[in-house]
């Protein structure tokens, strides 16, 4: 079954950002960001001014998807951690709750051991938030209160025509 739409509300968004900021601080890393497995960036912490985060998100998801394919070829369910080592900067990529990807960019001020340790704690916190999000996304079809009503139910043809025309 295809995954339902992902709805991210402010409350959970703030929680996620809090966890990412804490992780960045605790792991002495430069940037921490979270990407949906389909390549959409969810949240980030750190100095993003020099990073093309949209491209980073899409390529990370492509990388994880290809690695997942490799895992299944050799009979593994997934490789839950990927590590890319560069001359100065390194990438630590891990899967959270089978649905999202946590990326940590760090340099010599941190270490792989420290990042792994801190990522483990952040992962369990993030998993809890994503369980909430999944429940809310599924419930949004009509069981939740008025605040969950989709603003898109009123989209008109004019709204759509205006896209791409600006």
């Amino acid at each position, binding site marked *: *079954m*295809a*995954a*339902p*739409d*992902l*709805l*991210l*509300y*402010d409350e959970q*968004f*703030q929680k996620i950002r809090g966890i990412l900021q804490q992780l960045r601080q605790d792991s002495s890393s430069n940037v921490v960001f979270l990407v*949906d*497995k*389909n*390549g*959409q960036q*969810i949240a980030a912490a750190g100095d993003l001014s020099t990073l*093309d985060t*949209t*491209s980073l998100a*899409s*390529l990370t998801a*492509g990388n994880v*998807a*290809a690695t*997942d*394919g490799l895992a299944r070829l050799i009979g593994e369910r997934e490789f839950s951690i990927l590590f890319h080592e560069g001359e100065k900067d390194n990438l630590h990529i891990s899967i959270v709750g089978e649905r999202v990807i946590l990326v940590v960019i760090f340099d010599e001020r941190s270490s792989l051991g420290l990042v792994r340790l801190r990522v483990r704690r952040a992962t369990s916190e993030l998993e809890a938030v994503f369980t909430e999000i999944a429940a809310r996304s599924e419930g949004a*079809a009509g069981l939740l209160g008025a605040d969950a009503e*989709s*603003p*898109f*139910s*009123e*989209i008109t043809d004019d*709204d*759509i025509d*205006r*896209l*791409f*025309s*600006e």
Partner: protein
Amino acid sequence: MVFINYAARELNCKIVYYGPGLCGKTTNLRYIYERTAASEKGRMISLATDTDRTLFFDFLPIDAGSVRGFRTRFHLYTVPGQVYYDASRKLILRGVDGMVFVADSQEARMEANVESIRNADKNLKEQGYDIATLPYVLQFNKRDLPSAVPSDEMYRLLNVKGEPTFEATASTGEGVFDTLKAIARQVLTELKKK
């Protein structure tokens, strides 16, 4: 899987351009990239071989403006068209919200078109989607070539469900934005139903 970020008031949709090898999927994206203002597009990424054949995917994020106060972004992907990259094609279909099928109008490529639509159908099913319900647009590309098969004949051969169909010459841009707008319209209309 549309990603609606209420906190950032953003709406993100994934559109995949599918079709046989050398039908012009990447050329569609390149034209969109060239004709979109710098402020409304991200970097175009092509994971291609040395001979410019798509190896994994092309990716182009486009900002289409606002709908109901939400910044609407379309993430455009192509798949590698060559038959033996099937494993990669399946991966790219994950989370797809709409598909554009780019058919090559040359007579010699009709069989490849048919084979590629079958392949799309099979791979979509494997990912939990149904081409009958997924937003879907058909494009007949390379209309400028002298060997182009008449459109009505192509339609009879390739039409799946009466989907919107466009003639195009992606190398000059003809029909490229019409195709994109048509798939965007379907994806957003689908959102309205939810």
